[in-house]
């Protein structure tokens, strides 16, 4: 099971946080802070795993990657394969890259809902749903199309930005 997926930047600002376990709001913020603290002090060229005293006991481990200004952290339990999760993370990032066309931190900040939608096609309730990037992108595109067709009828405000806000 994946317990949580966190994305925060080099300063520990949360960009995307998805918890698959019920935690109180305070605990979530604390987890983000602690995770950042643990991950940020590690060198660049060390391994991407962190075990030990994390959310919910010793069975959990952190698997993280540092991309430019962002840390992607998956908190998983022992039923997940470390290397597989690293691959999943790569799929996630590549999918983001495809959907946002050269993804950068700003995309994630201002389109956090879209990131969540992409994530929802990959991981559901803490379990891996789909690992095939093409399949994920197809579903996302189809949903975007659906959204667009709905917007065409009554210009929803959620889309006003499409022309104003550029990446």
């Amino acid at each position: 099971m994946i317990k949580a997926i966190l994305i925060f930047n080099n300063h520990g600002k949360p960009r995307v946080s998805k918890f698959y376990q019920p935690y109180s709001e305070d605990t979530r913020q604390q987890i983000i802070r602690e995770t950042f603290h643990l991950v940020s002090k590690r060198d660049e060229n060390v391994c991407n795993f962190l075990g030990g005293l994390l959310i919910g006991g010793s069975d959990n481990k952190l698997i993280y990657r540092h991309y430019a200004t962002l840390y992607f952290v998956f908190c998983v339990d022992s039923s997940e394969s470390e290397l597989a999760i690293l691959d999943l993370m790569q799929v996630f990032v590549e999918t983001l890259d495809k959907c946002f066309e050269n993804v950068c931190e700003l995309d994630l900040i201002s389109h956090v809902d879209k990131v969540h939608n992409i994530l929802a096609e990959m991981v559901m309730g803490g379990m891996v749903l789909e690992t095939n990037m093409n399949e994920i992108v197809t579903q996302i595109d189809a949903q975007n199309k659906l959204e667009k067709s709905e917007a065409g009828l009554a210009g929803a405000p959620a889309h006003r930005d499409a022309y104003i806000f550029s990446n």
Partner: protein
Amino acid sequence: MALKMVKGSIDRMFDKNLQDLVRGIRNHKEDEAKYISQCIDEIKQELKQDNIAVKANAVCKLTYLQMLGYDISWAAFNIIEVMSASKFTFKRIGYLAASQCFHEGTDVIMLTTNQIRKDLSSPSQYDTGVALTGLSCFVTPDLARDLANDIMTLMSHTKPYIRKKAVLIMYKVFLRCPEALRPAFPRLKEKLEDPDPGVQSAAVNVICELARRNPKNYLSLAPLFFKLMTSSTNNWVLIKIIKLFGALTPLEPRLGKKLIEPLTNLIHSTSAMSLLYECVNTVIAVLISLSSGMPNHSASIQLCVQKLRILIEDSDQNLKYLGLLAMSKILRTHPKSVQAHKDLVLQCLDDKDESIRLRALDLLYGMVSKKNLVEIVRKLMSHVDKAEGTAYRDELLTKIIDICSQCNYQHVTNFQWYVSVLVELTQLEGTRHGHLLAAQMLDVAIRVKAIRKFAVAQMSALLDSAHLGAGGPQRNGICEVLYAAAWICGEFSEHLQEPQQTLEAMLRPKVTTLPGHIQAVYVQNVVKLYACILQQKEQAAEPEAAQDVTQLMVERLPQFVQSADLEVQERASCVLQLAKHIQKLQAKGVPVAEEVSALFAGELNPVAPKAQKKVPVPEGLDLDAWINEPPSDSESEDEKPKAIFHDEEPRHAKPRPPEAEEEELARRREARKQEQANNPFYIKSSPSPQKRYQDMPGVEHIPVVQIDLSVPLKVPGMPVSDQYVKLEEERKHRQRLEKDRRRKKKKDKDQKGRPRRHSMLHTESDEDVAPAQRVDIVTEEMPENALPSDEDDKDPNDPYRALDVDLDKPLADSEKLPVQKHRNAETTKSPEKEDVPVVEKKMKKPRKKEKKHREKERGKKEKGKEEKEGEDLDFWLSTAPLPAEAPAPEEPGVDAVIAAAKEEGEEPRGAGQGDEDGAEDAERNPEQKSSKHKKKKHKKEKEERTKDKKKPKKQQPPAHVQLLPPRRELLH
């Protein structure tokens, strides 16, 4: 109306959307909190509007604010409104918000049931998908129970996109509603062979999660998984399955045997490191589970170790880390194979990555032997020097101690060396582990008799050296070792070369800066040293020197008497008085050494930490029983002690009428309190309890004494090593002697047996014939009935425990999931109130009616089932590892149900709508139709059928019995 709409849309023009909000927050870095609270106010306004687009936009912003840590639970109802929007765009926003902030405590969540059900059955697959995704995050027991059936239907949806989501969410449903597991399991199992790889992968995922918690229930799926493993090309699925097998093999060693070959093949063939790694891991699990005696064991281990070596040598730090991790698993059972790669592990100790160094340290623990211990520790010591002031250094220190002390110092051949290492480690500044070093020093000095002379010399040097005390106790945790040093020097003072010098070192004024508990040990051991010196001096006939020592004591001890620490103060006062008394005696020329050393006569033996717990309570002794009558509740606190000494104060207690007025009682109490307060001798005036105790007849028979005497200090049924027996005997002997001594003392008080004690000491030392350098083994015992994992494994709150159900047992009627139509009607009537009772009623109804019936039936069926299953699995396990040749592994019974269910599923859902029970039955069970009358008839038929089934299948009815012996043979 139209005007309102226009106004609404104009307002909307000025609404912030998510991007505006984000940008705004970025532009208000200084007063972010203020800006956000302003935004939240705006959002609250927006939520009040009727326009769903405005609401959705507001909820979208709230979701973002939630991530930043703001509470948005107040908007739960608005989120539900947005969830129920007809447009996918808004619906998705609503479900996302719900998935981020709803939890079991959200009270409005119960309002969502019907909306979610509607979305689940929506013609648009994305509506359904978004509902499933959302639900997976906030499903509650109520939602799970109410929607289980709907979701189960979706597992057979025509679109794989829905199927895979429905399959995956079932795991969450099972967690919240364990009753759903058995009815849904056949279909879940069916999905393992779904044509769509995504659905298949989801099913594997769910079953793996389930099986991880309760592996034994899923053993019967092993053949199916085996087939998948040998046929699938999806590495994700393979990894999951292989991990699952790792969990199953400990339960069934034969499975492991079967797995080795295909896993080995995969190891050779795969190019995916992740798959390779998981294969190696599972092979290791198999090898661990297999008892020794497998001929081709070593080849598999060699393969694993060889592959792991490749991983560890890789430049990728991740592979290196994982390789070391897996290596440590092999180490536990096959240390020899790992020891061959010591060079690699030592190399990893120099890695720049701390995680890797720590993993390597773990491995070192199992790699040491008598031969290489010194070398490895030397290397570690050099790392200790390099790692100044880090947490890693503390880790190194504990590891050094762990490595050396493991298995009762199994690998330490030279304790002088070990003591030197410990002393060397005390040079570390600022470590947290001073107490660890101290504990080791004490342990070694006490248990290894031959080392005492050396240890004492080293310890006295420590006491003498200045560096440990410096820096203050707060900053310097290492001063803890002085605790050990002082005690060792005192206790084994006979080995000291220069006791006088050590004594002086221990009486230095600087000592008073040490923590209290260490000072206390100092004071106590100063006396031991003092006794030792006195004896030496008197034997050497140097009375002046002896008097000098006493003088030193009398001069220096007052500094401890002033201590703020109570313990130090008390001990120091005592010792000071003793010294003064001795001084007087010495002035008269009386020899005192013998008497003083008698204070510390006798040897201390190491006792197992839990020995006290192991003393069994003698028969007839109830520790919970009151010794005296329990005080009645009405009695106030200050009267309690009176009750105990009832006899002593007959004048007070007896004449008091028990029915005295409440007021009168209070008055008297007050008066008595007053009297007691005014009388400074109050306490002294009553006889001490001790004295009374001794005067009482029959002191010998108080139970405490009896424990020591009559009960052997051995726990029945515990494996007791020779050492332990000896230890216990010694202890008992000593206790007996002590008892003896006490009695003798009492009898002839005049000649307070000096000669007697001597004889006693002799007998004791005679018994202590220990070989040199022997480590007294202190058996680490567990308290009775307490296995290490016993309670940890079974947490009563463990959500997975409820999922521990027999999945192969045929489904009973009462277990059917509530049917959609039926429930729907009821929830719409009064969703909140009647929800729970209705379900209960419904569940109970059939149960009552058919209880007897079912029980009988189940009993029979279970038996049959177990036999069949057992055979199938056994057969599969015993065949050659060619999966294709094995017959269909699934249990025919369950298959039949699945097939029937499919047929049934095609029938219109509402077929049995009129009939409550019928509706349920129609859902799943093939043998039972909607009518109650029919049902009974069918039941009987079914019974007969199952009997029939059994008979032709098993040619001999007692097959179960006859099959057992060969099955056992197969195990080997």
